């Protein structure tokens, strides 16, 4: 039956993960990890998440995962988003979805098991200098030379490349028959010819320009052992990762609303809590509406994908709406907190940064509106 409330199991997932994250991930930790001298990642948190089974929530049991659904993973993302869990979680899960979509049984066994066990950090190398969303413009290519593939090119905005054990690199390739297409390569960080340079982002998440200079890869590094055929699996995994990110965003936005409600209820001016002013109440009512809408759209998308159904429009709607919602919620939160929220001491800016960063990743509002327009 159509029902927008959690099941009992889902409710337990939510409660457990909220409790865990609130205990383990303080704003102080988030700030610290973002400092330049840190890597942006916490190994001890990572280990705990692996132990509790959360790095493999969605990974089939045969690959040492918990065999849960994408909705379960979505709940985890929502709760992770509340506390701003470091982005290695998201980039590694994205890679796992891609491995799941494209990989051979052998590859899944190797890599998904490692991810579930917390033994592999990963990320997906997609965008390029002049090609952010259109792979037709990719200049990163893999040439086949005998039974090897030679990978050359440069990727940008690669999440957590500096920590990744293996990156998944999307390249154009051409096989012996002249057939062209996209291929997903598993590229070890340590492979010869791989070099990288960190980019400086306001969100203090770690992204890099990664250069591939004649990197030699054999067939075991080709996801699914299939070349020129990654489009479909890539689309599946990207849709999943986008929908999941929407839930991360919803989690962050809900947390900002909770903090703001608390702030305006406690802060007094003119002898009354500022939360009793109608203008403040209406701002918050609008914020809550935008976030409730985002949450329903995001769970709808994740839920449909979870059942293996096509949800291209649903994902586009969720991202177009959630991007605007999370950002606007942080912009208005600053308005309501005034100076108190603007000093870094308040931590509010951590969410503001993440809101903007997530708005810009996996396609802005306009990109998704254009997708919808094309399907009208």
């Amino acid at each position, binding site marked *: 039956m159509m029902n927008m409330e959690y099941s009992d199991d889902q409710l337990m997932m939510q409660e457990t993960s909220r409790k865990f994250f609130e205990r383990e991930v303080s704003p102080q930790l988030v700030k610290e990890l973002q400092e330049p001298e840190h890597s942006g990642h916490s190994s001890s948190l990572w280990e705990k998440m692996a132990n509790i089974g959360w790095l493999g929530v969605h990974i089939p049991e045969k690959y040492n995962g918990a065999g849960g659904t994408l909705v379960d993973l979505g709940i985890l993302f929502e709760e992770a988003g509340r506390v701003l869990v470091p982005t290695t979680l998201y980039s590694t899960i994205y890679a796992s979805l891609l491995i799941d979509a494209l990989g051979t049984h052998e590859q899944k066994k190797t890599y998904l098991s490692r991810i579930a066990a917390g033994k592999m950090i990963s990320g997906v190398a997609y965008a390029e200098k002049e090609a952010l969303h259109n792979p037709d413009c990719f200049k990163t290519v893999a040439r086949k030379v005998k039974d090897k593939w030679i990978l050359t090119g440069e990727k940008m905005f690669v999440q957590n490349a500096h920590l990744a054990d293996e990156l998944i690199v999307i390249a154009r390739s051409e096989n012996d028959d002249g057939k062209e297409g996209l291929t997903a390569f598993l590229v070890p960080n340590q492979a010869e010819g791989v070099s990288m340079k960190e980019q400086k982002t306001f969100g203090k998440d770690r992204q890099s320009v990664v250069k591939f200079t004649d990197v030699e890869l054999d067939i075991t590094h080709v996801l699914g052992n299939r070349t020129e055929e990654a489009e479909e699996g890539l689309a599946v995994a990207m849709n999943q990762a986008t929908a999941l990110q929407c839930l991360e965003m919803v989690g962050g936005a809900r947390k900002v609303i909770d903090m703001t409600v608390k702030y305006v*209820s406690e802060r007094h001016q003119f002898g009354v809590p500022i939360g009793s002013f*109608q203008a403040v109440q209406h701002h918050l009512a609008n914020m809550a509406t935008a976030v409730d809408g985002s949450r329903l*759209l995001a769970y709808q998308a994740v839920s449909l994908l979870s059942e293996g159904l096509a949800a291209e429009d649903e994902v586009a709607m969720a991202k177009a709406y959630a991007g605007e919602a999370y950002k606007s919620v942080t912009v208005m939160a600053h308005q309501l907190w005034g100076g108190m929220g603007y000093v870094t001491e308040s931590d509010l800016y951590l969410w503001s940064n993440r809101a903007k960063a997530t708005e810009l990743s996996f396609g802005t509002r306009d990109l998704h509106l254009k997708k919808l327009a094309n399907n009208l």
Partner: protein
Amino acid sequence: MEFHLTKEQLAWKQEVRNFLKEVITPELLAEVERNKRGKDGPLERNYRKQISEKGWYSMHWPKEYGGLEMSAMDYLIFNEEVAYMGAPFISNIGPSIVAPSLFKFGSEENKRKWLPPIKNNEFDFALGYSEPNSGTDLASLQTSAVLDGDEWVINGQKVWNSFGHRSTHQWLAVRTDPSAPKHRGISMMIVPMDAPGVTIVEQKTWGGHRTNEIFFDNVRVPKANLIGEVNRGWLILTTALDHERVVMGSSGRTQRNFEDLVKFCKHTVIDGELLINKPEIRMKLAELKVELEVARLFGYRAASMIDLGKDISSEASMMKVFATELRTKVSDYGMQILDLYGQLNKDDDLAPLQGELEQQYRLAPFHRFGGGTNEVQRNIVAQRGLGLPRR
């Protein structure tokens, strides 16, 4: 969580749609349009009779009162289909405002007397709430009822009595204790429109639908027409308001307008270009599509919460604000997309979408301030939903 309609719900949706396709005839629609400021005609009465024969006026009532005990979700599906198909309006006042109030607050005598004729659509109700000086501040209402022997004697004036001219009864909020604090001196009663002393005066509206002023001059009704306890009417009244919000928050009609607009853009060439190919139009339509989906999900959420027995006051308000402001936006954007054609009304042969967008544009304000202004709704979301302090 589950974002599909079940097989049964899909079948129900189809059943409603098939029924409506059959009963909505051009003749029926023409009659309704013709009579829109007067009494209902024979075709419309027959249309409603068919609905009542299906038991659909009471589909969501408990079995003990003769209802089909269908879920809130089924009721939502029904209402959305009615709106989507452009079927003549089916008043929800009797079955979904008066009846639930009777279930919850009515005496056994109240229930016995009023539920059967509501179920059979013999009685139609108008909401006797607003007064000239009591709109948003409804609790300040002044229409009085004084007990005189076995009868209440009613005096006063109501406005915005939108179905007054085609209802058999008023669902009337009256002041029964002028000395009590304003929320504690109000009672609810049922007043037949043909009682001596009731006068109706038409009020015309921008949206073209008729509303009325109703004057009560020493109108006498039996003591038993009081519903629930005396002076406890405010609780009955506010409980019923949540239902009204869910109905006003329906987006079925707006969804239909949007689909018709997309179709229009797909086959209309202006200035040498198919409208749907104009980037700015495509983006506007995509933006509306997203918001319509949110409105749809807000509706399903409210229904599923009702079915789970949860309090929906904040969610109903959120839904009402969102859907009604979207109604403005869809008709506003839509008219801009139609450009000069957006000016034509339904009387013009060339009017795209039979002038439906400009009609909706004019109807939209009514939905935004009716059923509690959107400002009050936002207060409710903030105070009841988020727990912010009252002034």
